[in-house]
């Protein structure tokens, strides 16, 4: 007797995919041209043919627990060759957006963050939090004299907001990653233990063997560059990635320096870290503009289409970059009336960008990296080089 899986299509999932970039999902009639032309597809488990059907059938858990959707960089080769205009590349983007929602908790936040008005509300919320702090500290909102943001808020009260936010984000993201890891283990049909668990890599292996190699690959954008129709998109994305790394570094430098060692901020314009920070800010704006320009161009060429989640992320990053650099320039120009409001706006945008990690398309940062690592790991398992079997031989 065959092992029958009870199927109950989730109509809201299908509508979700259709609303977030995959409105053509139902056009697919399973010819598998997409899987043949895809430069990244895995010959053993080709995609995106199967994902198209699963999405049509509203098999939410099956689609979300499918690692392959994250190995796609939406190059659009499949979309260009699809004989039926089903646009698999765009559908996979929609599936990814929904998968992020699927693993996010609480789901309500993901719903809010999936709408432009929701994101604006979040930004306003954080601005109000910051203004509330200033009010409680008894500082004026726009102090007189030379512009100095320390006059309204020192590093400490800012961190009082951002630290818990960061911790919350990390917890939500980690929860999502763990669930994701379990689901993709099941989806990849990895061998299960008798208690129903899947093999997990040791932390050391995870970092040294799989994580490190994956991160190097990501930093070089090797796979993104293989993309046929839209390989040019890799450049802007690479700039953006590196700018985030730079900004992550300088933010932490300032955070640790100021909070723990009482370093004076803002740093001098000639401080090496400040120079690096400014380079990072310029790269961020340039990178996101390049991404936007390429997206526009590729949309015009018809190989890619963009949905709300794409634009939310692009404009949010752009807002963070422009307000950040703007706040700095306005401070140097000493135009207090505009400088302080821009600074508050910047803080609101940054907070929203933090929250974007587990709840919006920004989550691809987490899930795609996880998928890369998982792919290396599961290949080893499948090849019998790791997992339960290896553990057993070690025990004996």
């Amino acid at each position, binding site marked *: 007797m065959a*092992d*029958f*899986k009870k*199927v*109950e299509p989730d109509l809201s999932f*299908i509508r979700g995919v259709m609303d977030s970039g995959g409105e053509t999902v*139902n056009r697919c009639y*399973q010819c598998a041209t997409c899987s043949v032309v895809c430069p990244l597809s895995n010959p053993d488990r080709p995609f995106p043919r199967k994902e198209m059907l699963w999405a*049509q*059938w509203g098999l939410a858990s099956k689609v979300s627990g499918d690692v392959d959707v994250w190995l796609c960089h939406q190059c659009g080769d499949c979309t260009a060759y699809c004989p039926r205009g089903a646009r698999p590349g765009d559908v996979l983007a929609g599936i990814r957006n929904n998968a992020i929602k699927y693993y996010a908790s609480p789901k309500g936040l993901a719903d809010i963050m999936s709408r432009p008005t929701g994101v604006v509300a979040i930004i306003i919320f954080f601005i109000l939090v910051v203004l509330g702090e200033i009010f409680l500290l008894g500082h004026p909102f726009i102090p007189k004299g030379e512009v100095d943001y320390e006059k309204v808020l020192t590093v400490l009260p800012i961190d009082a907001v951002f630290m818990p936010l960061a911790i919350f984000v990390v917890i939500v993201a980690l929860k999502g990653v763990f669930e994701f890891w379990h689901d993709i283990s099941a989806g990849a049909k990895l061998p299960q233990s008798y208690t129903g668990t899947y093999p997990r890599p040791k932390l050391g292996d995870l970092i040294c063997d799989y994580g490190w190699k994956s991160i190097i690959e990501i930093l070089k954008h090797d796979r993104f560059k293989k993309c046929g129709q839209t390989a040019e998109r890799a450049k802007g994305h690479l700039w953006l990635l590196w700018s985030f790394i730079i900004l992550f570094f300088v933010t932490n430098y300032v955070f640790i320096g100021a909070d723990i060692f009482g370093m004076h901020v803002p740093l001098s314009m000639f401080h090496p870290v400040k120079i690096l920070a400014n380079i990072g800010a310029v790269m961020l704006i340039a990178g996101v503009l390049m991404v936007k320009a390429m997206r526009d161009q590729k949309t015009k060429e018809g190989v890619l289409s963009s949905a709300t989640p794409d634009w939310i992320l692009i404009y949010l990053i752009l807002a963070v970059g422009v307000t950040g650099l703007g706040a700095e320039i306005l401070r140097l120009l000493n135009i207090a009336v505009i400088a302080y409001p821009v600074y508050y706006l910047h803080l609101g945008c940054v907070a929203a960008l933090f929250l974007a990690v587990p709840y919006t398309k920004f989550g691809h940062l987490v899930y795609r990296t996880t998928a890369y690592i998982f792919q290396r790991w599961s290949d080893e398992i499948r090849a019998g080089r790791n997992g339960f079997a290896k553990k057993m031989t070690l025990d004996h």
Partner: protein
Amino acid sequence: MSKKKGLYIYTGDGISEVIDIDKLVELASGDLGVDVVKTHDDLYSPSGVEMVKKDIESEELQAVIIAGVSPRIEYKQFDFPGIIVERVNLREFVVWSNPTPGEGDDAEKFKEHVQELAEDYIRMAVAKVDKAQLPDPYKPETVNQRILVIGGGVTGLTAALEAAEVGHEVTIIEREPQLGGFAAKLRKQIPVGPDYSSLIDPIVGDLIAKVQANDKITVKTSTEVARIAGVPGEYRVSLKEAGTKSEWDAPVPLTDEEKVDENGKELSAEELHKKYEEKNEGRRHYMEVDPNAEIYGAVVVASGWKPYIPKEGEYPHLAWGNPNVITNVQYEELAKAGKIKRPSDGKEVKSVAFIQSPGGKEDDADFPYASAVTSLVALKQAKYLREDQPEDGKAYVIYQHMRTPGQYEYFYKGIQDDPGIFLTKGAVTEVKDNGSGGLTVYVENTILGDDISIDVDLVVLATGMVPTTKDEAVINLAYRQGPSFKDLDLFGGYCDSNFICFPYETRRTGIYAAGGVHRSMTIEEAMEDAAGAALKAIQCLVAAEEGHAVHPRTWDFDYPDFYFQRCTQCKRCTEECPFGALDDDEKGTPKPNPTRCRRCGTCMGACPERIIGFKDYNIDIVGSMIKAIEVPDDDDEKLRMIIFACENDAYPALDMAASKGLSWSRLPRIIPVRCLGSVNVAWIKDAMSSGMDGCLLLGCKFGDDYQCHFIKGSELCNRRMENVAETLNSLGMEPERVKLEQVAIDDYDRVPQIINDFVEEIIGLGPNPFKGW
């Protein structure tokens, strides 16, 4: 009877390089007594045609022989009214098929053989034109222009409108009390035009309105055909109220089983007659004339289809018998009545599984009588559920084949766009009551990658459309061969004579099929089909008026002639005619109906008395052609065989083989025949008695996948060959000397080998022992 004739030899295309033209001219103008013999290196050009034309006028020629390319090409030139024209295939059959001496062939001998071949073909042509006569077309006194349409559904309505539009009066008869047929029972229908993406309201109402507004169309509802007697151009149709009996109901002949007693012994003529009378008690004789019959020229059969309803106990694995397992037609009724409700308890249906193929994992065939239509209907009906339950309705289509041909691909695409319609290929292995009012469907080998089970409220089986001609005569012909179409079991009951070659022709000339009787088709396809059948019916009337045959011999103004004084009433012709063209009288003397005839010559081949023939194709003409062939008495290297090649398939295959430079033996001579069915045993006797060593018959495939233009010809010929074998045996000759081979038109690569193998076999048998007698 010698005619004044001219021979014109084409010398281009390499003909003069292989054949000694001078010798040929010498033969023709000398021994053969041809009055004018000329050559031309560009005979088919206007100058060549002009040359022949001038000769006809100045020399008062009665017949012209054009020796050059195959008669199948350049056939439009040399068409002179009142002149018999015969074409000799020198290029393909003599020159191109013998480009160079084969390996080990002596060059001199090769030349000699090829020359003899060419000379024989000229001799045969001369013999033929000497005997042939010009056709004298049969033109009935009146050809009634009215068209009868049987069936008032979409097909019938369309056929009537199409015929009325070009001026014909039409009568539609419909068995039901109202017009519309099945199309009037639909909630919505599959689109009939761009953009094809969504369901449309049934269009049949418009058609009915148009028909009712058309003063050339008469509608008779609740009416059936009792009998159709007569011939194309003058059918006498007796009508009756649907479901009643009538004295004019067409009599039904005895079946083969009824013709024997319980021991399998054939009944005597009297017993047969008695049995026949009993069987047809209360019915008038088929030849009797109903004075009240209506006259029509041609008939379109559009009686449609009936839904296939599985028998009790059929498809147990699909839970057939459970009230919630229904056919697509039953589902259509539910949908037409309003929101779809579950038959078992009246609950609104939220989920439906449409099962397209019943065979589980063993067999991926769809239901009987299903086709692309059932795929399209499943898509349409899936949409019904979504119309009723737009929020949470779920329609599953489980198929082995999703057939959406042509523009219907857009329909498929449009339906698929609905997020509540789920499609997968898969094998439905079981349907079970799930205990909570619904059903669970188990599907294996899905393209989802898993074996799945689905809970649904309703299961719909994509059962097919059974043609009405499967179980009923429908046309009720008062013909000698009986009231129904013949051998429809070959096509599963579909009313068809050859779907690919002759889509509308039935085996009864003047009666054309369209729509659901023809194959299962959509409304759009049925309308197109109806237009085709209406045109065919009109063409048939024109053919009757002008006195030529219908497809496939539309150029033929001749018709078979019977020399009744010598008829022995053996009934072979009346029984063997594939088209039921011959009726008979009380004694069994055949009564020809030329407008029913398709001029295949099967009657001529069947006749043991050799009394049936055509003006330019008869026992004597072909016999004379055979006798015209020079058969050397004492040369073992020059055995001679005759090949009768069907001119529809085998002959073109030979032409093609030659044009591709393929060679075959130079010993046989080829005579084209209209159909192997027209080959009379007399010709084989003629060949053998004139010293020929073998006889090969190349005809179309017969049997279930027959390719015969005249349906039964090659099969009948094959049956006659058994008698020939007996005759040869009695003469002390090997029966292997006569052989029938089936050749398809695309068998050009095979046909030279078939000939060579036969020649080898004959050489092995040695010369005809009666040679030289």
